């Protein structure tokens, strides 16, 4: 028996997301963007940012809230990138070496973060936030004093001219690292859609052949895909997407992470994440090593965030040495909350939807503000205000709902209720 649709609970549960959708629509209507222009920008921003938002899911499931310390993962990636530039490894190879180098550095940083967060159970979010600020200081020391000074850098343009320390901006273009991942394989939107639809149908077919899917569901999957591919042939729709080119490899990497997030939850380790996330005491009583599980969750998150930062930087084409990592945790955290995740529950879908909405507002809000108030700065203020506001709202809503939930947890009362029900 399916529950009937309850509008009120749907609205309260998704209040943040709905508010954002409305805001986006409102701002879009004043922004003066054309739909096709907007879609083009959004594809760019999504492929650039989605990975790092997805990196937040595992710690949330493991009960540690939003891991604002992904900032530190981003720093690990930037350290790796600096050395790749020092070694002058160009293009895709350079990107891959940076990714490989990120792995041990971020694992080490994640280990330290995890150790610390294990000492402050229940305060992980504020802990990781402050830790991010602290690490920024250490990072500055490293980049201003250690690199290029104690450890000399030889590659051109890495060090501030006439001074010491790493330059403010590192340009990736000379090494052909801009779009290193994005440009491996690009397809126009309709072709990309055919590829994805084809893969989806193939996947459904395999599941059907393995008898995990019934015939009806297979047909439904095939028909849906065909309809979508047909819809894109309509000239108006085709027009919207005409100029858009999809970086296929980047997209596949993001999809791979989504699959990973799902797959890991179906393993013993994933079950441990979930158990620890729900109740550390119970998990511990069942013999699960709670601290170790939390440590692994943070390490995963830190490494993934590092790779996410690499994807971000290669798309931007240059690295803001001292600023690129700063807002990473905050923006990713806000994005996942906008998508309807809470600090105790998050899914791939919520992360992607949140990323979409959050960056959509980032695009349209300044444009709308410029058109309405004649000043894009108001839109800037607005989006900063919104990103902090979203986090505050999410925290309040969580505190409120867990307070409401805590009330009826009253054993004797429930037993009494049961007794009266039975008679």
């Amino acid at each position, binding site marked *: 028996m399916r529950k009937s649709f309850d509008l009120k609970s749907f609205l309260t549960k998704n209040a943040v997301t709905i508010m954002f959708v409305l805001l986006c629509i409102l701002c879009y209507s004043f922004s003066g963007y054309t739909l096709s222009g907007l879609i083009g920008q959004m594809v760019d921003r999504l492929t650039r940012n989605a990975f790092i938002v997805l990196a937040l899911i595992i710690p949330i499931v493991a009960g540690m809230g939003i891991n604002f310390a992904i900032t530190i993962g981003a720093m690990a990636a930037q350290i790796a990138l600096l050395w790749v530039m020092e070694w002058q490894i160009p293009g895709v190879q350079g990107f891959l070496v940076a990714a490989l180098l990120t792995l041990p550095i971020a694992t080490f940083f994640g280990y330290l973060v995890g150790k610390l967060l294990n000492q402050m159970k229940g305060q992980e979010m504020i802990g990781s936030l402050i830790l991010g600020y602290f690490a920024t200081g250490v990072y500055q020391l490293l980049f201003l004093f250690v690199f290029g000074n104690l450890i000399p850098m030889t590659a051109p343009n890495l060090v501030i001219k006439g001074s010491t320390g790493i330059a403010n901006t590192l340009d990736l273009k000379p090494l052909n690292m801009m779009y290193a991942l994005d440009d491996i394989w690009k397809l126009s939107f309709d072709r990309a859609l055919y590829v994805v639809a084809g893969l989806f149908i193939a996947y459904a077919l395999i599941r059907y052949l393995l008898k995990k899917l019934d015939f009806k569901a297979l047909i439904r999957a095939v028909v849906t895909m065909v309809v979508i591919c047909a819809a894109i042939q309509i000239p108006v729709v085709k027009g919207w997407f005409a100029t858009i080119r999809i970086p296929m490899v980047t997209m596949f990497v993001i999809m791979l992470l989504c699959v990973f997030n799902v797959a*890991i939850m*179906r*393993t*013993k*380790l994933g*079950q*441990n994440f*979930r*158990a620890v996330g*729900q*109740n550390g*005491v*119970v*998990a511990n*009583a*069942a*013999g*699960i090593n709670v601290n170790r599980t939390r440590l692994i969750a943070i390490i995963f998150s830190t490494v993934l965030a590092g790779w996410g930062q690499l994807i971000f930087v290669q798309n931007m084409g240059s690295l803001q040495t001292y600023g690129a990592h700063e807002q990473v945790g905050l923006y990713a955290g806000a994005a996942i909350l906008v998508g309807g995740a809470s600090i105790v529950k998050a899914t791939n879908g919520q992360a992607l939807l949140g990323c979409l909405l959050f960056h959509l507002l980032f695009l349209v809000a300044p444009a709308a503000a410029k058109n309405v108030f004649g000043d894009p700065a108001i839109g800037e203020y607005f989006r900063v205000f919104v990103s902090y506001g979203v986090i505050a709202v999410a925290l309040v809503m969580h505190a409120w709902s867990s307070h409401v939930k805590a009330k009826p*947890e*009253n*054993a*004797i*009362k*429930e*037993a*009494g209720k*049961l*007794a009266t029900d*039975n008679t």
Partner: protein
Amino acid sequence: MSSEYILEMRNISKQYGENAVLTDVTLNVRPGEIHALLGENGAGKSTLMNVLFGMPVIHSTGGFQGEVLVDGESTHIASPHAALDKGIGMVHQEFMLLDGFTITENIKLNREITTPSIVSRVFGKNLETLDMKAMRKDARKALDSVGMQGLDEFMPVAGMAVGHKQFIEIAREIDKTGIRLLVFDEPTAVLTESEAEQLIGVMKNIAQSGIAIIFITHRLDEVIQATDSVTILRDGKLVESKQTKDTNIIELAELMIGKKGEAMVDLPERTSPLTDTFAMSIKDLHVDMAGEEVQDVSIDIRKGEIFGIGGLAGQGKIGIPNGIMGLYEATGDVKLFGEPLELNNAGSALKKGLAMVSEDRRGVGLLLDQSIEDNIVFNAMQVNGEYLTGLKPIFTQKNGREIRKHAKRMIEELDIRCTSSVQHAGTLSGGNQQKVCIARALTMNPKFLFVSEPTRGIDIGAKKLVLETLVKLNRQQGMTVVMVSSELLELQSICDRIAIVSEGKVVDILSPHASGADFGLAMSGIKPTKEGADV
């Protein structure tokens, strides 16, 4: 070779510091029997079980003396995990279930069935995929064996009735392979009557399959109904171990409570006898205090009497003073000296002349980083505006001289052992902290005093002093005192009447001279009749 007993605990003794909690206790359990472990709070039941499970709290406090034999073999159980390896499992009193997990996932928690994959071969066992189908089958079997045929094994645990949760907890233990001995820690405490009956049926089924059960309970009727043999502890000592069929409910109650001991304090005669004017009339009181719920309590307390409220922990006796004082949400009708008392308003309760010495000394009772004198006058200052000087009512200052004078008098009167009145309360011993709490309550010049667990965690000399203080207040100033305590002996030595609370209700109001059997039966929720219990 199998021995007569699956479990023998021989001559177990255990001290926490100077305090002996178990002395020379022996417990023998046969395979396939249900063995009741009976005793009041503090009788040593949980310590004995902690020893059995090798809990860290035992090892970190110097271990224990005596010998544990499993299946005739002397064993050393170092941790709960080791206990499980020996086939000893526990059904917890508070549920060890994850709300967001399905029943299956809970039953198989950390014992999931997994299948290896390519990834797991490289990165280790932790990345093996869960085999939900096999897990589901096992869960179904376990659920069926506890008589929960109607329960879908894929339902999430959240929002489930407490009774069902209890059965899931049991199903999880049964699902563990090699279980030979199961400990049920007060499993029926949260169950309805029909569920409790079902549970006993399940326990009998489990026992029939050869698994021994230790059944910790305070419900005497269930002991008679369900068990094969029974071991009774009192004050950390073995009282009796016998076959259930050779005993009866009254004898059990008597053994559990014991004969009335020596009175702890001398009770002077009252100068004038008690009259029937009521200091407080409580009607239909409900208090929403987690773990100490009060359901529908009505008591009349006479002016000038010392009224005791007793009962086992977690049954609601502590909820009564907390509810009336406005510390926890309460509903009902309370009249103080004939005037209605506003509930859920601690300030007004204090103003009306009620005062309370809280059972939670370190939590709500004392400001630990403040001096003794500040602690003593805190409420009087805040509520009554006493001990203040300066431009009243806004620019007030503490009246240091008055405060010190008063504190000195209190320290002398109650014999608070301290270096000076400015010593921090947190550095005092438990007994002296308690006296500071009493001093503070007295500073309010109360007409009516609640004292909740005044002797918890303090040594015997201090206990006596606290009790004597209460008697003195009562006899000399005519103050009405309501004392809540888990220690029956204390209540018996100073109270005029004692109400026994069980499951949030007053079972009976007894004279302190009533027999141990009457008290024992009342504590397990059975109201004794005039001629003794009607079994």
